[in-house]
């Protein structure tokens, strides 16, 4: 039972690393809390559902489509909202409200177009595609969809890693994360780079939506709020403002949830939050964060 919970938790955690990724990326670059984060995950799920039922697309085909669609969407959204926000006195707090509004609007629009329903793509879609329904790891049997999701998450993490550390754009992005003002002075097109990072963040969220059916069950219009809250937990557990720390946060979250479900199922929900408070008080910058100097 323990080994099952641990291995399952790691796979589950990889997925939650992806769930938190976009929120952390946007926080790192803009110092803004995207309260609509979970709603973009929901949008990704609805896109997947829609393409599946209209054209029979497998979620694996939806992945590149949703990345492109939401990258562009996020890029444009940045220009509509963010420059204006940055002029205000306290962009960090104002963004909080703005994105709350965005989240309301997204939910309302989805309800107007799709109605208020739970939706799913068949959970056995990968089993049919690969003609195998389960796989065994160290004597524990898991659904094949978990393997697909885990691989997809790892690929996404590698791509984000490459984007961050092996591209010029990533270098500029990291410069902005370190110090927006200095980046501006040193001639980086801060708005463009941030807009791309914003797009990547939204795209990562939508990707979590595409994969969501296999890890968190059916999708529905109001699912966003819970996911945003969980994402907060994950990114702080990892390192706020450091996207790759999110993976660690996700893994801790995943393993903790699975262990709790095994041993104290009714307390499952409390643990991540207590863990978060504990971590934040001991090491506010997150488990992976660097120590920050005051003054």
């Amino acid at each position, binding site marked *: 039972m323990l080994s099952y919970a641990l291995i399952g938790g790691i796979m589950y955690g990889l997925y939650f690393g992806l769930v938190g990724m976009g929120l952390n990326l946007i926080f790192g670059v803009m110092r803004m809390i995207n309260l609509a984060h979970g709603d973009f995950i929901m949008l990704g799920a609805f896109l997947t559902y829609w393409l599946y039922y209209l054209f029979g697309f497998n979620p694996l085909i939806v992945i590149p489509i949703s990345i492109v669609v939401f990258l562009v969407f996020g890029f444009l959204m940045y220009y509509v909202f963010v420059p204006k926000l940055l002029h205000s006195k306290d962009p960090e707090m104002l963004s909080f409200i703005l994105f709350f509004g965005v989240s309301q609007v997204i939910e309302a629009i989805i309800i107007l177009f799709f109605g208020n329903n*739970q939706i799913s793509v068949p959970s*056995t879609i990968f*089993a049919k595609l690969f003609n195998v329904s389960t796989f065994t790891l160290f004597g524990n049997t898991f659904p094949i969809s978990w393997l697909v999701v885990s691989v997809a998450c790892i690929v996404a993490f590698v791509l984000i890693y490459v984007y961050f550390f092996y591209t010029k754009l990533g270098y500029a992005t990291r410069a902005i994360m370190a110090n927006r003002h200095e980046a501006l002075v040193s001639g980086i097109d801060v708005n463009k780079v941030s807009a791309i990072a914003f797009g990547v963040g939204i795209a990562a969220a939508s990707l979590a939506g595409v994969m969501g059916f296999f890890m968190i*069950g059916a999708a529905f219009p109001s699912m966003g709020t819970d996911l945003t809250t969980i994402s907060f937990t994950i990114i702080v557990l990892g390192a706020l403002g450091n996207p790759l720390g999110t993976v660690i946060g996700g893994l801790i979250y995943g393993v903790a949830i699975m262990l709790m479900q095994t041993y104290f*199922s009714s307390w499952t*929900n409390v643990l991540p939050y207590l863990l978060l408070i504990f971590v934040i008080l001991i090491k506010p910058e997150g488990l992976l964060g660097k120590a920050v100097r005051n003054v």
Partner: protein
Amino acid sequence: MRKFSALIVFLFLFVVGFSGIAMSKEAPKYIKVGTLYASSGPFAKPSTAEFKGLNFWVHYVNSKGGVYVKAFHKRIPVKLVAYDDQSSTATATTLYNQLITQDHVNILVADFGSVLTSVAVPLAKVHKILLFDVTGTGSKFFTPDNPYIVLCSLPTSGRWPYTLADFIISEKINRIAIVYSSNDFDQSQAVTLHNKLKKAGVDIVYYHAVPSNTSNYSIILHNIKAKNPNAVIEFGYPNNDIAFLQNLESSGLKFNMVFTVFPGQLFKLLKANVGVKALSYGYTYPTPPLLRYNKVNLGMGIDKFEKEFEKYSGKTPNFLNIAGYNVGLIIQKTLETSKKFNQLAFRKAIAGFSGKAFTLDGLFKVNKEGAQIGEMLPVAQFVPRGQGLKMNIVYPPSMKTAKAVYPAP
């Protein structure tokens, strides 16, 4: 001067007295039915479905010239006043009050479920207006000192598993696993089932609560399997049931018996989300339209209702649509039989036809406190037939249509 003031007083009394008489005599132009629904938030799906059912009833009675009101000896059209509470109890409080104090509705109908109904209960009591509770089955609502509530559709959730328990005992199934979501609705079922089975000496090998927003049951299923039970009972909200059944299918695990709540209520939704295979040989509480009540003495039978509802909305009805419509029927019968047009008279009228009225939702019977104690929910099993599923009622013997396929192949 004294004469003058006497005249004023007389005139005043006259006007007051006359208007009082006029008020009680004159029939209202409309019967105002007030209700709330949630277009967004966690309760939106079931709430809008019930609302649609109620709307259908209004549409249907108005097409016949309104509802017959015995107190005025004539048909009066129904006007529906409805607001959106967005699944928020704080908003619902305000809006229920709006219906009572601003719109002065004649009939107050609650929103879906216990959470959104809860805030209406004390409001209705203090404003002395009868609350037609659609599916709010919270046991705390029904108290001897409150005549202003009637539960129209489902029995209180603690009574739901009565037949399920009997079924398990009669089939001599031992080693039961129960996993339930920690909310009012599911926990009260789990507690009832647990106690009944324990009393009958059935072994319960797994009995755990999970948070209501649990969306992944893979590990839990694995842990249940480790206890090697003969039956797995999962009490949850629709989301829980969907996740549970999806995870069960993709895990490749097999159990002799699997019971979930919502396939019997929201069959289409569950089928669309989890597929035919995941439901095969599964058990549930069947409700209309899976249960076909055609011999009714109030409103339409299920066949006719399905036809009419489809004409009206373009969709085949689910259980919640029926629950919404059923409330309409109870209101209709109340107005048809109440001698006076006031709230306590309504309640008295309801007591009068309680236990006698049979609708497409089954027998309508309430106790003194207004809680529903009508027909018990039977136990049904889905068996594959062609590409689809067939539902067999397997318990109680009086309603049985086929023998349970146990263990599941």
